């Protein structure tokens, strides 16, 4: 058990993680895929900074998150979007205003779920609730996104949710597991971007709707 962090660190961490939650909502609100990628990068940087500020094992995780998820993966996604020359609008299945409302309901749901769990310290419960919220929001944006890139962004947000869960516990994750996760993520993005260009070649579009159709 380490000593509680000083007041300003605790407050800054709270602030950064809250902004990360706002980023997840922004992902639902924006219609432009470019902005979506930037928002994902911002969210990763915010969470990485929070990890660094928390100290201990969080420093390594945080630096890794900022470098990989804040810079490399967004750069890769931008390059992919340029290559396939996709239209920038994401037009989701559900209008943003409604989608945001569902997002708020999901947030309330996960906070209520962790409030009901006995035996968790309040800060850990808050962290887990935030993590669950991010995961649910990521899944929701995967469900409503029409373009395949929206699905990729959704699963990346789900991974950010896992990151929050990891930094909100006392012992963090061992750095090797974190490294493994990071490279997993990188490979996943690469593979899915290959998949996107294949989908684009076959169907001349990256609407996930069209994947229902059989094609020889």
């Amino acid at each position, binding site marked *: 058990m380490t000593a509680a962090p000083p007041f300003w660190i605790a407050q800054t961490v709270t602030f950064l993680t*809250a*902004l990360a939650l706002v980023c997840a*909502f922004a992902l639902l609100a924006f219609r432009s895929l470019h902005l979506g990628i930037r928002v994902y990068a911002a969210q990763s940087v915010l969470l990485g900074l929070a990890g660094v500020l928390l100290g201990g094992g969080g420093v390594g995780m945080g630096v890794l998150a900022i470098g990989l998820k804040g810079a490399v993966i967004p750069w890769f996604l931008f390059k992919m979007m340029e290559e396939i020359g996709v239209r920038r609008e994401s037009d989701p299945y559900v209008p943003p205003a409604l989608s945001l409302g569902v997002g*708020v309901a999901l947030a309330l749901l996960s*906070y209520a779920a962790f409030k009901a769990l006995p035996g968790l310290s*309040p*800060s850990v419960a*808050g962290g887990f609730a935030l993590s669950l919220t991010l995961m649910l929001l990521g899944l929701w944006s995967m469900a409503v996104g029409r373009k395949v890139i929206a699905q990729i962004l959704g699963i990346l947000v789900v991974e950010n949710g896992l990151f929050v869960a990891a930094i*909100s516990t006392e012992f963090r994750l061992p750095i090797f597991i974190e490294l493994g996760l990071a490279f997993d993520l990188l490979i996943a993005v690469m593979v899915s971007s290959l998949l996107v260009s294949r989908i684009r070649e076959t169907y001349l579009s990256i609407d996930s709707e069209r994947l229902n159709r059989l094609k020889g």
Partner: protein
Amino acid sequence: MTRAGAAAFGQSLALIALAPLLAGLIKRLKATLQNRRGPDLIQPYRDLWKAMRKETVVSETASWVTLAVPYVVFGGTAAAAFLVPAALADTPLGPAGDAIALVYLLAVPRFFLALGGLDAGSAFGGMGSSREMMISSSAEPALMLALFAAALEAGTTNLGAMARRMAELGWAGFNPGLALAAAALFLVALAECGRLPVDNPATHLELTMVHEAMILEQSGRGLGLIEWAGMLKLAIFLTLLADLFLPWGAALGADWTQLGLGAALCVLKLCALAVAVALVETATAKLRLFRVPDFLGTAFVLALLALLSQGVVRIGL
């Protein structure tokens, strides 16, 4: 009258008198950002003076409503200015009205502006009124929720007490709930004051205008008063943002050093917010009208999250 009372009264009068200067500052900053030279800081005063001296011309089909609109609009907005704390964490009308009264004092001018747009029977006026009503019906809930988030922090809806609480908080004022509410209020301010992503204040293009369409039939002194009220409304919103959502600021007592410091901080924060408005107006294009509900829906959700995180869920680690 005590010195505190006089200072509270004086700050509201200063807000009314200096509102055109703030509008001029935003115009100048925008011009600088866009590599133009831009008008003088005091150009809005010259415009107002010019409008005030001119003869008022009223359409033959207009009723008394058109004549009454400028006075109601300016009166309502000026009354709202007396509810807003600026340099001192107190307001002259504090005992008479709170945040909710402020919202309704700002709603009266809007109602009369819309009536004025309809009154003369020109097509543009009606179009502007209908758009304004559409925008404000989605902006008002977000405005209410954002103010309530700050009111929950202070435990009261009295605006003076809310500013006092924020000034006392200092570093602890940087909490997620208040930040979210501030962001929501900023978006609402852009929509309510007819700034760029929602309405372009610099154009008279028929197809896109909202605020300008409603006041097309106004002229002379009436036009001047309405434009002054518009600038004052922007000043009120930015002052609210500065005093209720940014920590350190309003003076708690009425001795000269505290008052001076409060006024300096208030001016500094207003300048920072003016830069923010100018940046937004330079960086964004006007939204299509039917995208405006999405924009204000975002503001509403931000305000809702802010309210929730003040009470039910403590967002963040």
